[in-house]
């Protein structure tokens, strides 16, 4: 077996040639197996229908009062839309020291929301209401000094699952299991009181 010059029926067997053929056949079969498995793997991607259902959502902001929040669903994710008071936006800078990522450097958001208020416009905040820890729905705790969250609570969100806390701009507080701020979806304001979630300058020409 190990003998390179083994004989079969009196004639010599070229073992190295045999080994080469075995390896070459196996390698070809392995490549073929990868190609064969790929459609099955691809079938798990979001289907055409799921992608089509991910179309932009239009929201009328005219009835949204200061301090009020509405929830819409875009791409099966709940989206929080709320109007912040001018004072609340100014107060955001006051607790930068207690945040993990105050400048949103490691967080996910479109370029126009990569700022301290994490929004296009000062007043309107648009956040994906999926906790960046493990995906629960953070609950609204807008009242400052909330009895549950302590007297120094500046208002924001608390995730009921694992206790992550976020401020009024969706920025995560130190001591939370989540390590990044709440994500911001792409959005735009075609008119003063109209918000379109899932569409901005980048996506306008593209797929959406």
């Amino acid at each position: 077996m190990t003998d390179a010059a083994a004989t079969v029926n009196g004639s010599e067997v070229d073992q190295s040639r045999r080994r080469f053929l075995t390896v070459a056949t196996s390698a070809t079969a392995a490549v073929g197996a990868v190609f064969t498995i790929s459609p099955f793997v691809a079938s798990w991607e979001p289907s055409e229908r799921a992608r089509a259902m991910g179309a932009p959502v239009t929201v009328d902001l005219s009835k949204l009062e200061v301090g009020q929040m509405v929830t819409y669903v875009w791409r099966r994710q709940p989206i929080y839309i709320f109007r912040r008071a001018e004072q609340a936006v100014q107060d955001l800078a006051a607790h930068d020291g207690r945040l993990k990522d105050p400048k949103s450097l490691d967080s996910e958001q479109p370029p126009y929301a990569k700022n301290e208020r994490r929004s296009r416009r000062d007043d309107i905040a648009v956040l994906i209401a999926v906790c960046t820890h493990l995906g629960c729905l953070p609950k609204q705790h807008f009242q400052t000094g909330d009895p549950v969250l302590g007297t120094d609570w500046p208002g924001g969100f608390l995730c009921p699952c694992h206790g992550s806390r976020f401020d009024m701009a969706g920025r995560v507080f130190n001591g939370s299991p989540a390590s990044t701020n709440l994500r911001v979806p792409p959005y735009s304001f075609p008119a003063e009181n109209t918000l379109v979630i899932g569409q901005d300058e980048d996506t306008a020409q593209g797929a959406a």
Partner: protein
Amino acid sequence: MASVDAPTQGGFRGWLNKRLPVDSFIRSQLLDYYAPKNFNVWYFFGSLALLVLVMQLFTGIFLAMFYKVGDTTAFDSVEYIMREVDYGWLIRYLHSTGASAFFLVVYLHMYRAFLYGSYKTPRELLWLFGMFIYLALMAEAFMGYVLPWGNMSYWAAQVIINLFSTIPVVGPGLVEWIRGDYGVADATIDRFFALHVVAIPLVLLLLVALHLVALRQTGSNNPDGIEIKEHPGPDGKPIDGIPFHPYYTVKDVFGIGVFLTLFAIVAFFVPTFGNLFMEEANFEPANPLSTPEPIAPSWYFTPYYAILRAVPNQRLGALLLLLAVLAYFFVPWLDRSPVKSVRYRGWLFRGFLALFTVSFLALMWLGMRPATGGYVTAARVFACGYFAFFVLMPWYSRRDRVKPVPNRVSFHA
């Protein structure tokens, strides 16, 4: 004993044995298979796990006849099973109680291995197959839990699938691939159904077969951790062994009787087991806009869940959860003790085993409590205890002052 499948054998049995090795299989696997004579109560759980597997397959097949997969139909079809299918409630409760029973007997079965060193040489592979069964069982239980599409189902799927998002680079794309949508959706439940009823049960059956073949190869360990094969009698059979049939088949039948009695009491009278086996929030349909409070996985996952929540960093938490499960795989190589059974180990090992036991149970309890203040601190302490058992094992198992192991098993008739 005359060979029962000799060519001279006549009649139907002879005809059959010429074509299928029935008699020789029974002989080699049951009559001539010698198991140690000193098995105790810890040795019931392997056969019970096999029984529960068969029960789950049976009740599961019937549930699949009435269940309608899909995000708009699943919840209603489960209610239909519960209210309108004759004895549908019973079939479902047998299946849901069976899931918890499965984990209970598997945990006791695994604990037996810790007590008596059953994972040690030459049974490493046997242990690994068992661990793969445990992993497959976790996947099976999780996906089965999602199928009723109650609110806890939905959010369990959301949280567990999101664990994969912590993987660097590929995480977010991987999560979308698993769900088949931008959130947990119809596509998700459909594929979970296929995996739960076809793919994973097949994998489980294959692994169980490998587990049993490996067991037959090495033979069972026993409470004394002595290799009975090393002490054969004049007939070549181990002196401390007895034929599996009839001695252990009868013992296992007795165990099954006790188990089924307890099982029936739970299935009939307390199927939800005080929110532990079935959670209240899951009697409401899935609602993507409302996370149930409190959110907790089934009791058999809570130790790992408590570890996950104890870590204030998401990636590290997910990593520790993974390590907590994978740690079991390495135990045969972490344990450097010259003896197997806890009976002949010293106080060092016993102390660490006690620490592990307390930590596991405490984490199980903490995983059901809210993730606040003292609970999180306690979870951190016990998570350290849990990992200390594994990480320090190479040290304390070697340092331990073991007692001399006798040649023969101790047996009190």
